[in-house]
């Protein structure tokens, strides 16, 4: 589903070059639920933005669903984002001027879907996340957990094959974080591929597979000496 080989991402500013990713290799199979962990600044978000075609990369290869994406133009990338990928952000990223219904509708409109089908899908998605009764509410009128569930509904409504979540529970308390994760697990059981960045070891543990990123590279936890320092930290926190 998602395969990166020797991928590199360099951020060039006037003063420095930052290697956010270097020789980055990952292979996520169709239907997998992968948790990506790693210290702050290690490149997790960078990986996710490239995986989600929000950004281009500097070197290496990235095949999404068998397609080498570096050849695609901006419109084609938009189309893939719209049809194949669902995004869930740490900051929810609902559009404050639109109510819940209209928020969920945004990606469907860009797909050029007919109004009746849009309405059906929106209500189904809101039903899924338990917020059908809030369709006319504005994001500011919802709790953080509810907003994130709307964001999940928005990601779900287009029935994407791949869900990308960047610390989806980062802004939520433990209770709400659990319910969001349960929702993701349910979606996963129904066949979606999920890649989730998280700092929370408890949530990471519930994924099928953990990928650890350090300094812009995927590392094998068992072999990397840096892991032990990190494991110590994790242990101290929990």
């Amino acid at each position, binding site marked *: 589903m998602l395969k990166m080989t020797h991928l590199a991402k360099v951020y060039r500013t006037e003063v420095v070059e930052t290697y956010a990713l270097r020789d980055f290799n990952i292979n996520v199979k169709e239907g997998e639920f992968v948790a990506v962990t790693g210290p702050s600044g290690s490149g997790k*978000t960078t990986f996710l933005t490239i995986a989600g075609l*929000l950004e281009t990369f500097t070197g290496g290869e990235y095949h999404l669903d068998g397609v080498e994406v570096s050849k695609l133009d901006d419109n084609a990338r*938009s189309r893939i*984002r*719209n049809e194949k990928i669902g*995004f869930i952000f740490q900051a929810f990223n609902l*559009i404050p001027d639109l109510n819940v219904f209209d928020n969920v509708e945004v990606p469907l*409109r*860009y797909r050029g879907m007919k109004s009746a089908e849009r309405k059906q899908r929106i209500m189904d998605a809101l039903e899924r996340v338990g917020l059908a009764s809030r369709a006319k509410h504005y994001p500011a009128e919802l709790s953080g957990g509810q907003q994130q569930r709307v964001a999940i509904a928005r990601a779900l409504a287009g029935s994407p094959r791949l869900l990308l979540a960047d610390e989806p529970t980062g802004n939520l308390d433990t209770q709400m974080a659990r319910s969001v994760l349960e929702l993701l697990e349910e979606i996963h059981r129904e066949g979606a591929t999920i890649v989730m960045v998280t700092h929370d070891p408890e949530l990471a543990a519930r994924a099928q597979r953990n990928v650890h990123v350090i300094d812009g590279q995927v590392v094998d936890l068992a072999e990397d000496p840096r892991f032990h320092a990190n494991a110590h930290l994790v242990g101290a926190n929990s």
Partner: protein
Amino acid sequence: MDILPILSTLRRHKVTAALVILEIALTCAIVCNAVFLVGQRLDNISTPSGIVENELLQITANGIGDQPDAHARITADLAGLRQISGVDSVTMANQVPFGSSSWNSSIKLSLDQKRPTVQSVTVYYGEDIPKVFGVEIIAGRAFQTNDYTWFDDAAKSGNATFPKIAIISDALARKLFPDGNAVGKTIVTGTNEVRIVGVVKRLTRPSIMDYSTAGYSMLLPIRMTMSMGASFIIRTQPAERERVLAAAVTKLKAMDNRRVITEKRTFDDVRKAYFASDRAMTGLLIGVCVALMIVTALGIVGLGSFWVAQRRRQIGVRRALGARRKDILRYFQTENFLLATIGIVIGMVMAFGINLLLMAHYELPRLPAIYFPVGAVLLWLLGQVAVLGPALRAASVPPVVATRG
């Protein structure tokens, strides 16, 4: 395009949206009326005179009061002017089209009629005016030499020596006799009965109040003396005008060295002077319109830029959710189109109101319906041009903004 979500977004930014809408509405209302007024002025400016403007010269000289030999002196002056090479014909006329002062009379169809049929018809005096002015006689005949009376004779001895015949303009003929030939009919000018012997195609009046009746004019067989603002009118070839004008002035001074020439000009100058204020007003109105439109455009650019900056994050999110650059561009264009449309609708109502006010206070005609679509298209275009910059900037917001803020 997706109008409903854009509208509901605008509903949540009522104050800002209302300001732009109001700006567009005001501009629309004022521009509609101003364009109409400009059109009217331009119409006025292009009023035909009916005379051969590019062949005529006007010289006004100060006479020295009433002189016993006035008739002989005028006759001599005209004869002298005729001798100048290049002079085609000459007369002394009481007034000219687009002159600043006018001679007027009311017209009735019979002596016992209470109220005049036409309140104010301008009356031209001067020998051979149709020939010198180059006015075409389209029915009847011109005056003959023995038809003429001198102005001072006609004026001082009451009805006895007042001319018994007249030539009228086609416009006046149609007004007085809508369904028939005017030649041979009798009309009453002031208290004098005159018989119409000819009709000229067009002869416009001086000092026009109402352009719809500017073509109502009458000629009487009266020889003008040099009094009451009368002037020499010389017809020549267009290319000869400057030379002939200078020669004529020299000649007139040579014939009477106490004479003071108060005005010497081509008819082009007459027209130019007459419409100077219309042209100035046209310029002013156009200036005001352009200024208003620039201010409105800047307002739209300003608000557009503000909204793009404010919505940067959500633009990134929209891009992440599958919007193409084109979709973002179109979002802002559509939003502007909606604001402009609301503004234009309100502006139309205001335009109509302003027009009603102008009609009540300045006797202006009703704003013709054609100005509404013209104003609408103008403001739609203005809005689209103004919003293009901010909209392009919005379209260039990268999708990664969704994750990085």
